[in-house]
């Protein structure tokens, strides 16, 4: 739920009035999390930034659809998720797009294990985009199950079983990779 007396409420009001400060606050607060969600779905930094840009350009006109029944962050995750899936659907060769991007997945950030980043990117790539989004939000961003129900519009039981299957597939991939590394050594 929205804290109707905090800066979030104020920013939403400002945005509805078409004021830059409101949009800027929302961008500062949520852009990084939304970007990472898009990146995990689309497997491409460039495309993730495109979706993030589109989302914030559209935000002043679609903010009226936000009723405040969930947190703004939850709503933004849902909008971003749908925009990413639309983008993938529009792509003529979905599989080709995904696997082409695997090679450029990791932008090699500071202080992060490059191997680990590559491993996560490849492990997530074995999942479908919806499941990637779900698993990332749960494990990477720590979004509670209740909010995930809002984002994905699914009941708790369905979400839990989807998460369980996704974990199993990622674990299986990691074990396979570990065995491969051992065999190599």
């Amino acid at each position, binding site marked *: 739920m929205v804290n109707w007396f905090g800066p979030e409420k104020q920013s939403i009001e400002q945005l509805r009035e078409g004021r830059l400060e409101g949009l800027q606050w929302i961008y500062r607060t949520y852009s990084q999390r939304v970007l990472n969600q898009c990146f995990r779905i689309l497997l491409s930094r460039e495309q993730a930034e495109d979706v*993030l840009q589109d989302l914030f350009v559209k935000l002043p006109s679609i903010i009226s659809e936000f009723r405040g029944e969930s947190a703004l962050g939850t709503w933004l995750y849902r909008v971003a998720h749908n925009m990413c899936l639309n983008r993938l659907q529009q792509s003529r060769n979905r599989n080709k797009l995904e696997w082409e991007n695997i090679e450029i997945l990791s932008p090699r950030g500071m202080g992060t294990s490059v191997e680990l980043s590559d491993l996560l990117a490849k492990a997530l790539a074995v999942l479908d985009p919806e499941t990637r989004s779900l698993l990332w939000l749960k494990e990477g961003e720590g979004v509670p199950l209740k909010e995930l129900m809002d984002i994905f519009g699914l009941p708790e039981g369905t979400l839990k079983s989807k998460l369980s299957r996704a974990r199993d597939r990622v674990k299986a991939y990691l074990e396979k990779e570990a065995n491969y590394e051992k065999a190599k050594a």
Partner: protein
Amino acid sequence: MKKQKPERAPGYGRLFQEAERLEPTPQLWERIAERLELRPGRAAAGMVSWPSPFLRLAASVVLAVGLLGLGIFLKAKPKQVAASPAASASAMAESAEQLDLVDPDLLGWHADLGEVDMEAEEAEEVL
């Protein structure tokens, strides 16, 4: 005995905890602002700009006071209408007082004029 959680695959937890977080490029916000043609204090293109809640409140107060004033005015109007005959009577009294100020000789002259006319009419009848 406490049920133990099944062990996760090696590195599963680290995989997400230590995952790289991307930062939006600094130019991204500039591109967004450019596309929205946003400037500080200016409404976004294509958006309806609504007044702030304070302005809306002030406008409501002004409207309420205006309606209240109109109501009071309309309520008071019949009294004004009832009071108007008295006002016209006093105006007539004033004009009567003014008549007293007219020169009596002048009034006599008017009366003479009437007599002259009557004499002329009588003369015509004789002819």
